[in-house]
């Protein structure tokens, strides 16, 4: 008996048991059990790759990102007898514009429709997408869910969302009443799958006019070229000994993925009409990537200096640094104005001027504006699709858009709602940025069901370029091959 449980046998059994138990966890995770729940990516305070935006679940639309990882909460009174409960899964909690809008919208709608109860389930942070995924996979779905421009094709092409075209026709709603790009990003392959919650434009060039004047620059002048931005960026740098106290411009801190936006602003169109072919490796792409890498060296002294600079700021990230007047020029989203006007209230930043992103060397004289945003979608398999549509469309119509804007700095996607005088007159630079919503022509990402793996490839190659592990020409070639392989793999399975 002693021999049967000898030390050797115990250790052997323990080792083999550990192998089974530990790898079993991974295997079980791939077999339909609950997903692991790691901490949010992009949440790392310092080492997240610079110039890489947070994953899309950390929506920047209100300028405030959700911070808790798994806070699921229901924020409502119980339904009364006879009420139809519309289950709404979204990600906005806390005290920021987006969250306030969710509360205000539901409150007003329930006043208008006493027979409806909007039951909000909030899952903040990186858990949100996993919660959506688990719901779609299990078939136990909410009636409607908040998503973003990047995820509409991801979910729509896999059949998770309900097409809304018939509802649009039934209710005689005209897509022209919304900014073109909001309808475009709510659609996939000719069908409408969502209605705008609020859109955003994210290649606004912000110029801190007082800082420019201090540097001897004419702050009222719009930048006409990338070279001009670079020149201004260098002039706006400030140092105290070896310590950088102010950067003029950080090209890789664009609000999006610089490996996507700069080539697009240099005239490149990536995806074919059917979304199955990508054209990444072009001379204009290489030219754009080359510019960013060189400008990062020339203005900022390279990637590591940006990491150091950012870490030394009281509030990190482009919008916060710009809001605190630590940055002379920023290319970012319209929600930066919320930060400037309501949070930092920095006197100099409040005197910002805005313009559209100028075209690169191959698109001289042109201006570009990229769009994104959040939208509400009715989920396929919803118990109450009609009621969910009614709430979804009401949010997207002028009354809902006004309510959302009145408690936030967001801009409505409905033209009439966005131009509401009560909002326009009370918001910093709103008159200047509104026309940009009509001029947004492209998205700051690949509009594809394979967006997520494509994004990761772009982020990786961006890193490699800044680390000088690859050249822009090699990067373009590599991305061309890898992105096309991702597309081919996906579309070959769809046959």
């Amino acid at each position, binding site marked *: 008996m002693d021999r049967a449980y*000898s030390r050797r046998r115990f250790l052997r059994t323990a080792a083999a048991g550990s192998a089974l138990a530990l*790898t079993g966890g991974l295997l*079980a995770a*791939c077999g339909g059990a609950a997903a692991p729940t790691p901490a949010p990516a992009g949440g790392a305070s310092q080492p997240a790759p610079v110039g890489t935006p947070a994953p899309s679940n950390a929506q920047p639309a209100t300028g405030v990102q959700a911070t808790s990882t798994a806070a699921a909460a229901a924020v409502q009174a119980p339904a009364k007898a006879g009420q139809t409960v519309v289950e709404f899964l979204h990600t906005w909690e806390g005290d920021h514009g987006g969250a306030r809008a969710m509360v205000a919208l539901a409150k007003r709608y329930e006043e208008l429709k006493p027979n409806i109860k909007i039951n909000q389930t909030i899952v903040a942070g990186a858990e949100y*997408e996993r919660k959506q*995924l688990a719901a779609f996979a299990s078939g136990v779905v909410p009636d409607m869910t908040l998503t973003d421009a990047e995820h509409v094709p991801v979910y729509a092409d896999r059949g998770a969302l309900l097409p809304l075209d018939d509802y649009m026709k039934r209710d005689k709603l005209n897509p022209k009443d919304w900014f073109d790009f909001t309808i475009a990003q709510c659609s996939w392959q000719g069908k409408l799958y969502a209605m705008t919650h609020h859109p955003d434009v994210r290649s606004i060039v912000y110029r801190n006019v007082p800082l420019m004047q201090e540097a001897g620059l004419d702050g009222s002048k719009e930048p006409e070229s990338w070279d001009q931005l670079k020149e201004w960026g260098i002039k706006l740098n400030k140092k105290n000994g070896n310590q950088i106290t102010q950067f003029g411009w950080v090209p890789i801190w664009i609000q999006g993925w610089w490996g996507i936006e700069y080539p697009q602003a240099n005239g490149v169109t990536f995806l074919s009409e059917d979304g199955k072919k990508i054209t990444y490796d072009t001379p204009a792409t290489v030219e754009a990537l080359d510019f960013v890498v060189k400008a990062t060296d020339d203005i900022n002294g390279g990637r*590591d200096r940006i990491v150091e600079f950012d*870490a030394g700021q009281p509030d990190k990230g482009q919008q916060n640094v710009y809001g605190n007047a630590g940055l002379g020029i920023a290319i970012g989203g319209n929600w930066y104005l919320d930060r400037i006007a309501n949070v930092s209230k920095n006197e100099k930043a409040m005197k910002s001027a805005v313009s559209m992103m100028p075209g690169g060397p191959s698109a001289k004289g042109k201006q570009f504006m990229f769009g994104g945003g959040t939208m509400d979608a009715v989920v396929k398999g919803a118990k109450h699709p009609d009621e969910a549509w009614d709430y979804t469309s009401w949010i997207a119509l002028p009354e809902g858009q006004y309510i959302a804007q009145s408690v936030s700095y967001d801009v409505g996607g409905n033209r009439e709602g966005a131009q509401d005088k009560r909002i326009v007159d009370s918001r910093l630079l709103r008159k200047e940025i509104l026309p940009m919503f009509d001029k947004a022509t492209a998205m700051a990402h690949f509009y594809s069901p394979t967006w997520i793996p494509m994004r990761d490839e772009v982020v990786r190659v961006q890193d490699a370029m800044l680390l000088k592990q690859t050249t822009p020409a090699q990067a373009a070639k590599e991305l061309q091959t890898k992105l096309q392989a991702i597309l081919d793999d996906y579309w070959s399975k769809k046959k």
Partner: protein
Amino acid sequence: MATVAARAGAVPRRPFLTQRRREAVEGYLLASPWFLGLAVLTVVPVFLSIYYSFTDYQIISAPYFVGLKNYAKLLGEDAQFWKSLGNTGFMVFVGVPVHMLVGLGVAMLLNQRVYGLPFYRTFFFLPSQISGVALAYLWGWMLHPQFGLTSIVLKLSGVQAPNFLQDPNWVKPAFVFLGIWGIGTTMIIWLAGLQGIPDVFYEAAQVDGAGRLRQFVSITLPLLSPTIFFVAVTGIIGTFQIFTQAYVITNGGPNDATLFYALLIYRHAFQYFNMGYAAALAWVLFFIVMALTLAQLKLGRRWVYYEAERGNE
């Protein structure tokens, strides 16, 4: 009468639910929630994952059978598979020995008879109880190139600290270094192994004139071999699944330098909607870990010394 006699002579029938059986039934009933959980959350998913590994399963839509396509793709076409395996291999074959050596070194120090030993043991053990995510955040700051404690210490020594977590050449060694923080658990195992070595061997060696190094090589190491074996096997298995640090601190970057195998599985399963492919990746990992473990068990026979077994022989 005969019947009565027969009855009188018969052995009384034992009730079906004897004390022993009743206790067994009660035991199983009490344990049944755990068994149910094991079956539903582990056993069934593990078997399902075998099936999914032969399918294209995009989670939202139904899986469809693709045969060995997933396995062919990961072995033949997927550069990230090999990259992640290489990154993980570095942590296994560099990180595990480093952690073993440091753990053993600390355990030997804590095996001395000095004042305040319980305090020192607690001091070295405590960090291993910190959650992986908190630890990752903490070290993200500790290794910061400008403001991190490591950088400040290095600067005081006249050395310019590299950007540990943003430099592809430094990030994996930095993760190995970071892992040392968690040696507390293995340190306890080392300590138990060291305390299992009878003093009489050392006393005899001292009488024979053996120095400290000789005693370590000829007494400590052989008698510690079962512990070395155990720590190595479990360390390798655990390190093959390294995930948290890479997910929280670097998200696989820079340039995939910390794209570890478990992170690749996670991305395919829960971000890319490739659950079938992720299942295939997980099964390949399972076979790699199993093969390594079996090889270690086989090789262990040659170098692991079990005093109890030898004593019985």
